């Protein structure tokens, strides 16, 4: 990502920008960290891994809570009605917070969500079962060209990150495949391993989890994932597909700017912890540091990209 940036740089920017008044002692007590999904998912696992490092750095804990429902919208639609004192923060996800409001009235708009820091993303990965006759991305494209629409690809959810990846890649490669949405990564993986589908649009984390049971044809990263040296990127194979599902931390709009920057600073320091990075990368995540300084440009770019795709896919509400 173009937004990968040195932590020190962020810290310097924050040191210049942040006045000391309100945020001097922040955090002085446990911070409630609301995950708008159920426990056990990638957002939850990430938060669980952040918690000990956050505690080590600040001396205060993160109390992880869940407010699941409507694919995250149940939480996000209430974010701005929560106390803006820095002690209530919420996990935010892309493309969810851009796509959901485009699709229907979910009780919030993309710009209502104040994300202070994007800390990682799970890059999209195109996977086939290990015993599949499709050995490479070239085989895949050839097979799809020979019989358009017959290749079935499982993925998690409709109009989700996996679904977007499928549409984007079909367009880039000039092919037509059939996307079969499943109710989560688990069922989608089951269909993949059981040869119920020809392949799957998953994430690098899925590849890490399923290991040698699957073969990865491509990952949507700038460079190969450090823990997956055998997974070629789409870029090196000539397709400009970079992205995936991004995770960040948001706050109620009323949260003072200095508290926001202090929170972003702490999250950046969590992201720089070597042990944390190791665990994240072993989980298949790709590190990312988008703090307040780059937030505007980053959000403008992803919004433009997703909105264009959403229009093409016909999911924008009338």
């Amino acid at each position: 990502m173009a937004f990968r940036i040195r932590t020190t740089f962020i810290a310097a920017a924050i040191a210049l920008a942040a006045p000391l008044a309100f945020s001097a002692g922040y955090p002085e007590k446990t911070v409630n960290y609301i995950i708008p999904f159920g426990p056990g998912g990638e957002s939850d696992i990430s938060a669980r891994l952040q918690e000990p490092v956050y505690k080590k750095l600040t001396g205060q804990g993160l109390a992880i809570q869940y407010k699941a429902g409507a694919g995250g919208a149940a939480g996000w639609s209430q974010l701005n009605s929560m106390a803006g004192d820095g002690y209530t923060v919420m996990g935010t996800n892309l493309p969810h917070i851009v796509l959901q409001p485009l699709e229907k009235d979910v009780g919030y708009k993309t710009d209502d969500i104040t994300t202070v820091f994007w800390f990682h993303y799970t890059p999209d990965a195109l996977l086939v079962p290990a015993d599949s006759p499709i050995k490479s991305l070239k085989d895949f494209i050839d097979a799809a060209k020979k019989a358009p629409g017959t290749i079935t690809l499982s993925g998690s959810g409709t109009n989700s990150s996996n679904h977007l990846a499928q549409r984007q890649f079909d367009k880039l490669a000039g092919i037509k495949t059939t996307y079969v949405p499943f109710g989560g990564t688990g069922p989608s993986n089951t269909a993949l391993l059981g040869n119920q589908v020809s392949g799957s649009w998953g994430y690098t984390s899925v590849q890490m989890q399923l290991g040698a049971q699957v073969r990865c044809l491509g990952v949507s990263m700038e460079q190969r994932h450090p823990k997956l040296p055998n997974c070629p990127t789409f870029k090196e194979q000539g397709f400009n597909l970079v992205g995936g599902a991004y995770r960040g931390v948001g706050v109620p709009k009323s949260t003072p700017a200095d508290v926001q920057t202090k929170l972003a600073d702490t999250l950046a320091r969590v992201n720089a912890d070597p042990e944390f990075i190791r665990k994240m990368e072993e989980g298949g995540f790709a590190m990312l540091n988008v703090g307040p300084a780059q937030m505007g440009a980053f959000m403008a770019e992803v919004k433009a990209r997703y909105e264009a795709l959403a229009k093409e896919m016909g999911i924008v509400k009338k």
Partner: protein
Amino acid sequence: MGSLDYLLAALSPLNLLLALAGVVAGTVIGALPGLTATMAVAVLVPFTFSMEPAAALIALGAIYTGAIYGGAYAAILLNTPGTPSSIATTFDGFPMARRGDGDLALTVACLASVIGGLIGAGFLLLLAPPMATVALRFGPVEYFWLGLFGLTLIASLGEGSTIKGLIGGGLGLLLSMVGVAEVGGDIRFVGDFKTLLGGIDVVSALIGLYCIPVLIDLVATPVAHLEASRQVASFRLAEAFGILRRSRLNVLRSSVIGTIVGILPGAGGSIASLVAYSEAKRASPRRAQFGKGEPDGVIASESANNATVGGGFIPTLVLGIPGTPPDAIILGALLVQGIRTGPTLFTQQAPIVYTFIWGLILATLIMLPVGLLIGRFAFRSIVAIPKAVLVPCVALLTVLGSFAVHNNVHEVQQMVLLGVAAWGVGRMGFSASPIVLGLILGSIAERGFVQGHLIGNARGSILAEFFARPISMAIIFFIVLGLLWPWWAARRARIAEARHG
């Protein structure tokens, strides 16, 4: 494979303590309507991060199996499934309690749960890698047929008229469609209520549909909730053992059904106990007694749902695919612990895996004394507490339970509205179970149908996709059998009667 070493490792004082504490906590959480096994596991997860992996797994497995069992208390004593897994336990458990056999029902449930749990864990210990492939053979189409198979149970529930059962099932199917469609993303039956986008939550629907009518009736009628037919002094253990001995085939069949359904990632304890219940009824010579307080119904449901615990761990550990919703959380906890599940886990991490499995078996055994004691306490309390205290306490629990689903007041509103509606239609002869079956199975069947249709369409043959796969054909056979059996049995009885007469 040095199993004995792992057994000894599981027997360490700390592991035993964790198993005991987990089972007790799980049983209590499961017994409270609305607090499910998934929540019990989720609450415990943060505490396990500082533990050794095997100890963490034992604690999680113990609370999980305890919670699945605990659901039986509320099912038997309050006619409200404590967790979705014990829906089928209400069918005969509550009628047993009504006629004064609540203590017997609780003991039978405890024994059946322990044996079911042991059989499920036994499969996990001995046959996990080969059994895991079952999970992979089940495609979308198989889930569709499995959902339909579950729906045929409506016809055989046997309470009230079949037509009303079918109408109730249809209502449940409609309720299952509310919200954003999982496959396709269409918005259905939401109106102007944004809170309905997430759909009707099964747990809050369960509480409302089962518990609220019971509460209203308690207030509206002067009779006591349950009458103890005798001095509640014994566990009626010998009697319960006798029943289980007589029904050993039922226990075995239900446990195997529970294990296999547990392995299937798209189904869980509720489906397992429903399928086991319907098979037990079909096979039983006392078929007509089912639904009226037949212990075999409780046995089938409870042995099957506890067998899903061991069964669910099979794909979780072997394939990295959670077999049941609590397994998904446990899988997340394993990732945080830095344990990679997958085919190599059983060889590379054998000490952790086998210590855990032995720990799960021990936890299941601990459930026997713990369950009997808590069961007697719960039965005595429910019988002894005056209605004026019982009703407000249970009412409070229903609100807490449905709030806990998503920490949200919407589920409480849904629960109360559905409950009052259920009471209303209940007076017209509609019972809650067909509605709940429709709600749970509708989404499974719909999802499977749409996915199967997409795949079949892409492959160029929708009919072959739905009808030509071996497992599908087997399930279709059972559906046809289930639908024709009552007719055939009645005919045979008529012929036999004619011959004798």
